[in-house]
């Protein structure tokens, strides 16, 4: 049986998430929308899936390969724009309708998770965050390796480091290779994607931290999606590019531009802040 997956082109609605990757590749609780849907279609009996990608199809292909991970044959078909469901059926199912999964799973637009069909994902940052929260208790599936529930409502991925002085408040989801320093408070309703670094004393609640994002010492991320240096308040639907790497940045930026990421921050705060504890603004290199 065959199926079509349409990668969505959400425009500016969740632009901060799609700066470096198409939305179908953006992780939610460690895996991309495309990965979740391919796994789901495999359980429905699909053997062949055509992925229709208008946005950066080469990245989509790199993300899924040939589909052998799911026991599928996957082909990525570049398109000029996002097709509607009817357009996709007319264009790709014209002569062999019997070979396809029954509707609605014959053609799926990746604008929701299979286990949460009622929750839109890509219409706003608030929707993305709400879906991530709702998905937390459902995300551990039988084929998922490494994530364990440390205590009720607290999920931890492989090789995550949590300092003894850090506090985890359920519900929260901490992906693999995340690093949390002492004094940090994570939760409630917090998601840390892979390789996030939470520095000493930082607090993250009602928020989602994107992969490889550095959250600086004694900062507070609340009602937000932090994705590299982009900080989105999903409640107010406002966004800011944080200019100071010691507050918030991509860990890859810190590695690539150590001089820009470190020295100015030290100088500025030592110059202007006299009474706060020096440790509050000390620079720290995340482990590499």
């Amino acid at each position, binding site marked *: 049986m065959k199926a079509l997956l349409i990668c969505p082109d959400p425009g500016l609605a969740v632009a901060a998430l799609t700066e470096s990757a198409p939305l179908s590749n953006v992780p939610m609780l460690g895996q991309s929308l495309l990965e979740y849907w391919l796994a789901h279609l495999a359980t429905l009996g699909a053997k062949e899936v055509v992925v229709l990608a208008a946005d950066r199809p080469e990245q989509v292909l790199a993300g899924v390969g040939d589909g052998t991970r799911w026991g599928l044959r996957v082909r990525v078909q570049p398109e000029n724009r996002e097709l509607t469901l009817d357009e996709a059926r007319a264009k790709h199912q014209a002569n062999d309708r019997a070979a396809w999964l029954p509707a609605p799973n014959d053609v799926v637009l990746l604008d929701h998770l299979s286990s949460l069909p009622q929750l839109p994902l890509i219409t706003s940052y608030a929707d993305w965050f709400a879906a991530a929260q709702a998905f937390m208790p459902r995300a551990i599936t039988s084929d998922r390796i490494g994530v364990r529930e440390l205590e009720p409502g607290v999920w931890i991925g492989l090789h995550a480091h949590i300092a003894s002085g850090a506090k985890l408040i359920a519900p929260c989801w901490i992906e693999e290779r995340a690093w949390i320093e002492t004094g940090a408070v994570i939760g409630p309703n917090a998601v840390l994607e892979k390789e996030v670094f939470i520095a000493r004393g930082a607090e993250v609640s009602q928020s989602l931290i994107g992969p490889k994002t550095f959250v600086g010492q004694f*900062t507070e991320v609340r009602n937000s999606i932090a994705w590299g240096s982009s*900080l989105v308040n999903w409640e107010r639907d406002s966004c800011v590019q944080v200019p100071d790497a010691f507050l918030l940045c991509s860990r890859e930026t810190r590695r690539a531009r150590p001089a820009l990421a470190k020295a100015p921050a030290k100088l500025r705060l030592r*110059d202007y*802040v006299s009474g*706060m504890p020096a440790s509050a603004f000390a620079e720290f290199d995340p482990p590499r």
Partner: protein
Amino acid sequence: MDINRQNGTLSVTGLRELNSANAHSFRSAVATALSHDLQAIEIDLSQTQTVDGAGLGALVSLYETATAHRDPDGLRLRLTNPSPPVQQMIELARLHHLFEIAPQAGSLEGTRPQ
């Protein structure tokens, strides 16, 4: 940038940016106008397009200077009308716990330091 004083309140308006480019001059200019009988410092951020760590540090430093030889509870530092992105920077650095924030009309309610 304009600095005016009226009825124990020092008001700062017309601040287009508060970052490494002007943080030092901002702090110096406002500190010059400080006095022991001040009851409030009100900084209007309605025209402020960008804020960074240096600018936020200047606010903290200014507050510390103003309260250095007096009861901190006797002086309020109030940031008014920050745009949503500027307010995000303030909150990321946790300064909303230190300063009173009065958002722009139509946005969320103001916060008082906790």
